[in-house]
């Protein structure tokens, strides 16, 4: 808050602070009547939200219909991914996707999907929106589920006959699921 005092009228800052304090963080909803005060912005329709709402949560919220298998994934990977990540996902030159288990405590840790990623759902969120690098958002849901299945199988996280879809993906237990701790800093004294 301090940072603004120099650049805004102090009474205005005090007003904003008082407003925030009065309603508190979690009770913003109660000030709903004030929301349209400026009359700016227009209501978003369900259809618009559906078109933009592309993220996937650890609960599986946001996963589309469709499914994929390890076998189909091998084909998708070979065609669309191997050029950057290597034939089996360990060679690179870009991010190593496979292997690295039991390396996190060594001087040269290898952070891969299998060794480091805590949530399998992140694979859908990321691959769908950002991969392949030269054609993001070009994979179909089936292709995306398939390449995820292949990557999880290569990392020995799922069995070869597992079908990956909106129900099975959030249930996949990642090896490093408990590898993260919330920011404890300041930690150096």
């Amino acid at each position, binding site marked *: 808050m301090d940072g603004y005092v120099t650049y805004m009228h102090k009474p205005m800052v005090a007003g904003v602070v008082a407003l925030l304090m009065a309603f508190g963080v979690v009770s913003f909803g109660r000030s709903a009547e004030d929301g349209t005060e400026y009359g700016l912005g227009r209501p978003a329709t369900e259809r618009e939200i559906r078109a933009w709402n592309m993220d996937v949560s650890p609960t599986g919220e946001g996963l589309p219909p469709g499914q994929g298998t390890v076998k189909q994934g091998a084909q998708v990977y070979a065609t669309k991914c191997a050029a950057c990540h290597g034939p089996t996902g360990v060679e690179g030159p870009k991010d190593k996707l496979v292997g690295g288990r039991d390396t996190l405590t060594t001087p040269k840790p290898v*952070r891969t999907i299998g060794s480091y990623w805590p949530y399998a759902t992140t694979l859908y969120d990321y691959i769908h929106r950002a991969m392949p690098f030269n054609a993001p958002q070009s994979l179909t849901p089936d292709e995306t589920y398939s390449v995820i299945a292949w990557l999880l199988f290569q990392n020995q996280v799922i069995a070869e006959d597992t079908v990956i879809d909106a129900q099975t993906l959030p249930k996949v237990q990642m090896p490093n699921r408990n590898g993260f*701790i919330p920011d404890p800093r300041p930690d150096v*004294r």
Partner: protein
Amino acid sequence: MNDGFENMNRRRFLTHSASVIASGAAIVALPAARAEEPKPVEDPMRLPGILPRPYGERSPFEKQQRLGGAGPGAPHGWGANAPNNFNSGTPIQDLHGIVTPSALHFERHHNGVPAINPAHHRLLIHGLVERPLIFTVKELQRLPSASRIAFLECSGNTWDGWRDAQDVTVQDLYGLMSTSEWTGVKLSTLLEAVGVRREAKWMLAEGSDAAGLDRSVPLTEEVLNEAMICYGQNGEALRPEQGYPLRLFLPGFEGNINVKWLRRLKLGSAPFMTRWETAKYTELLPDGKAYQFTLVMEAKSVITYPSGQQQIQPGFHEISGLAWSGRGRVTKVEVSVDGGRTWLGARLQEPVLPKCHTRFRLPWRWNGQEAILQSRCVDETGYSQPTRQDLVKVRGTNSVYHYNAIQSWTVERDGRVRNLYA
């Protein structure tokens, strides 16, 4: 006396002119040189100067530029030399004061800079809200605005500090940070407009670049008070590299979460666990666990003059550098010229702003003997910038991000300045 002074000036002028002519010729020889580029003249008092121009440019004598680099350990360069070049560092050794010229602001993007027409750009706010709303850029610019001068630092800035010291410049080690005046609408204004539901504790911010970069932001009191949706940078529109036409700005937080080309905010009850906050911007510790959601940039300082690869002469020098903290104001900076045995208080140049670069200065006369220059800062929470030894004792050397230890530059007997350990 007068004559001597004049003569000295004349000699300087002549020397200067010689280099002027040389560089003038170089400019003309460049095929890309624009016809209206001002040509240096031998005596500017004997020729009319150029007329006003619609958009200003720096003097052709000024050549500072960003340093392109692809990642930890990757080669530096531009274009074909660095085909996957997604960051560039600010030449902090060449800058004055605290504000970074927008054209030299550091860059980090994850699949190029998108070309966005602001007339077509929209911001959607939805999720756990009473009224999902869509804003145009113009609508956002009509809402009550706020401006703030604050630093922005990539959490990977000084990542080489975790490794053995390399003989590099301060731009190379510390260039992934800049300071600007940021202007926009406060996040709280927009959240009031949509009516945030009680159970909303996190907010996904998503960019409209080819990476679709997405990060989860905790709705803490600090975020609700200080976060901004920015459209302005140093008085003009954001640069494309900085998120034109809209970016999220979270003062004091690691660069990556200040999502550029912002198109969507989604309120949720839990973090969304995107790739960027799990696989990437987390810090691996010696025991194999990793810190997550380490958002604040802790206090840090660095001497920018004299600094790595510079060459100095015995005599007077003003030691100068930058100090900053994501937790608030810098309250003290001390400088050592003997490797940390003794410390002297440096002068802090006004303004000293919270979560902003602060310029510090200390006069120094170099006697030609080997010297080790260090700076350390304290912020308003009482946090002291750690030594490298103390930092590594807790975090090991595999963290990649959030390196903030005391920097040492050795001035060797021949005046060469070298990175002793980052």
